[in-house]
């Protein structure tokens, strides 16, 4: 570094530092009062137990990998050799939705395949008819950074939340002048920010994930906590419900680099995958429910096979070095769309592992991406304040 400092700042000598360098705050250390001999022994024992647990952890992890490898008789790309290649794609921005005054953080489709709800950093939640680009409803939340929003299956309500640590449900109205905030219902309460929310198969239950490291299932009518899901070591950033006939599982991804599959009935984690190298920003089930994809700050998307219990594909390129914020599958599962922090959208061939298209248009990071319910288009939301519909 000094060498080209000389070249590029020849007669400029740093006789003083423009400002003081201050190191990052050190890891939080607990304040301790002087230890009694008993406490000291206890502490040593606790540390030993923890160390022992950690060693056991490593051993068990290796054993699990061994077991998984025993049944691994073929790679995805080998199976994909027999499958036809994909043709050229022409995907364009068909609609640009302008109206948010700040970063768009999240969006969700209505089951009618044309309406969407979106939320932004300035606390605004807007319901649009994306087909006509008309704004139909707008709500101002009492907090900024509304990181999660969801459309109810009936199309009659939306849920949202963020830095207020809550998830609230707003019933929608046909009367444009009605103040939606008046009928707002506070449903979920976490101890840190709300990162994602989703209705289950009806308007009566909501599944949430939070910066407090937990996910939770709530009864909308009463606000009662039905089930909580503990097991992530850090912020949970995303979740997705399984599209299966039983509909009893969901997957979550967090800052601990783990993607966990949960049983909604018991609250237990039934499967876990830890192959990403950084925070997992987005998880989405494969349409059959037998696999799921994840997108992470490590700039890769990955596919996990639930029946084989392993990671089966990594979607990455040398030239892609910025994080993935959001992923979703096309209707058949053949295409995986990823929204990236370098403002682009990459489209991957799920089977062959190649990138089939790259889309430009947004002027800041793509923060959210969802394919429409009938698969005719996908919508992206960006920190450039806009949403785009692509088809």
């Amino acid at each position, binding site marked *: 570094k000094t060498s080209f400092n000389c070249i*590029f*700042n020849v*007669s*400029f000598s740093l006789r003083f530092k*423009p*400002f003081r360098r201050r190191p*990052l705050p050190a890891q939080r250390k607990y304040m301790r009062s002087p230890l009694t001999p008993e406490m000291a022994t206890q502490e040593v024992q606790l540390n030993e137990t*923890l160390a022992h*647990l950690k060693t*056991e*952890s490593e051993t*068990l*992890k290796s054993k*699990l990998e061994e077991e998984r490898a025993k*049944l691994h*008789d073929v790679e995805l790309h080998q199976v994909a050799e027999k*499958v036809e290649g994909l043709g050229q794609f022409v995907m364009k921005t*068909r609609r640009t939705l302008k109206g948010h005054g700040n970063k768009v953080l999240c969006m969700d489709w*209505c089951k009618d395949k044309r309406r969407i709800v979106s939320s932004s950093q300035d606390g605004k939640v807007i319901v649009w*008819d994306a*087909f006509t680009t008309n704004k139909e409803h707008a709500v101002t939340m009492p907090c900024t950074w509304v990181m999660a929003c969801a459309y109810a299956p*009936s*199309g*009659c309500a939306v849920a949202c939340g963020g830095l207020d640590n809550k998830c609230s449900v707003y019933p929608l109205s046909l009367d444009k002048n009605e103040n939606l905030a008046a009928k707002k219902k506070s449903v979920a309460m976490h101890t840190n920010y709300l990162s994602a929310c989703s209705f289950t*198969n*009806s308007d*009566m*239950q909501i599944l949430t994930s939070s*910066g407090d490291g937990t996910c939770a299932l709530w*009864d*909308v*009518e009463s606000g009662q906590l*039905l089930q909580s899901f503990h*097991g992530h070591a*850090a912020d949970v950033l995303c979740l997705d419900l399984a599209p299966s*006939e039983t509909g*009893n599982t969901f997957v979550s991804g967090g*800052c*601990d680099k783990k993607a966990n599959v949960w049983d909604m009935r018991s609250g237990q984690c039934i499967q876990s995958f830890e192959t990403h190298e*950084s925070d997992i920003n987005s998880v989405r089930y494969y349409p059959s429910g037998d696999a799921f994809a994840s997108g992470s700050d*490590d700039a890769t998307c990955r596919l996990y096979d*639930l*029946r*084989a*219990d392993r990671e*089966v594909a990594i979607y990455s390129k*040398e*030239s892609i070095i*910025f*994080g993935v914020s959001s992923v979703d599958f096309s*209707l*058949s*599962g*053949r295409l995986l769309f990823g929204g990236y922090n370098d403002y682009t959208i990459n489209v991957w061939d799920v089977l062959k592992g190649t990138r089939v298209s*790259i889309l430009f248009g947004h*002027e800041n*990071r793509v923060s959210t991406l969802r394919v429409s319910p009938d698969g*005719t288009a996908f919508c992206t939301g960006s*920190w450039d304040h806009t949403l785009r519909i692509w*088809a």
Partner: protein
Amino acid sequence: RKTGRVRDWGKQRKLEGIVVEMQDPQVGVKGSDQKLNVTTIPHVIAGQEIITWIANKMKTPLEEAHVFGTMLVAYGYIYPLQNHKKLVMSNDTSLYRFQTPYFWPAQKWVPEDSDYAIYLAKRNIRKKGMLEPYEQVHYNHLHEWLNHKWDFIVMQATEQYKAGKERKKADRVVFDCQERAYWIVNRPPRQTHSALDCGPERLIDPNKDEVTGQYNIFYQQAIMRSKVKSSVSLGALVKYITTYKNHDAFLAPCLPSNPWQTDNDSYWTLNMRRVDVPTKMRVERWSFSLFELLSDLRGRDDFKIFLKKEFSGENLAFWEAAEELKWGTASSMSTKAETIFKTFLAPGAPRWINIDGRTMGLTVKGLEHPHRYVLEAAQTHVFLLMKKDTFFRYLKSPVYKDIQKKARNPEPHNFSPNQLEQNSLNRGVGIHPIILWQQEEEEKAKAAAASAPVDVKAMMSKIDRKK
């Protein structure tokens, strides 16, 4: 306004490596001197030269290299000399300079508010009224909340200002550009998109110790759990894709046309919930699995017609009632459970379902203290029955063959550019989901009143609505 710092340092190192290589006298981008008023700024490069260099180095098309170039500006490794507030790289003769490493985004230190205050104060000393409106707002705010340190801040600012005056003019101009670029990236004005603007803080592993024990139990269970051979599960993934290939609008044309592409919403109108005549594609999709058939309410209607003819509607009715219980409000649970017991499970019940003795026993016992998953076993049993037997008989039945024949295959649209223009001006508004939902509820109520035996699904949702 607490925002998180950039955390992915592997990425920073990659970027730094590339930026260093770009400045290599042998293989890097060629710069030149540029005259700016009376001073000459050294080592200035044009955007298009940078982008071409990146495209060659990373072996990517120009568009992607352009994106990468923009990211280098957004992170503050390169700064623009013109339009300094727009942190993008332009693929033309716009001028850029490499930022001095001192000002690179670094993990070791953070630009604090007091540093920003010193910077703004220094510019204020240099020339009053030099601050932009957004900077003035920051300055006033910092002056207020850093008031206790203000003497120190002014002292530092004055010292820096004096030291700056002693530099040669060319160096001073360069340093001012660098410093200004640094603060645009770290305290971006409202319309500027900076890559260091990260969003709320995220925590890494604060609970790690607490969950380690939990994970060990999980690993032990996971080791024991049965797994499927890769060839089998991957084969299933491929099969799914092949089955749905023609139904994927990104892979096969949507008939009559994709509404988003032609601005004509016929596709949605033809596929509404309660059409008399569904489309051929929709009917085909019902045959893919029982789950598909039941998920499409129009398909479920057709299935019910078949079941009525077979006098075996109770299985589906039970399944629907169990769904209503599972996804209903917590408060409605006991009422629903009771109704279900009376209708389907009690000895001599009007719609008694034929499940094996063990499951029946467990279910009835569970109903004494109903919870939302109390019917899980029975529901699964009934679903499997329908899936393995009834569903296949339906697909071979006259009911299904009939609807297959009747189903329509819309002609693909072929709009002229003029027509497309017209379409975009006349986009249909469709029916609002709230109205559709109200209509659905009315239909359900009518069906409940008209049908005998009782339409349990309608009754269930009526109980929900009452609550």
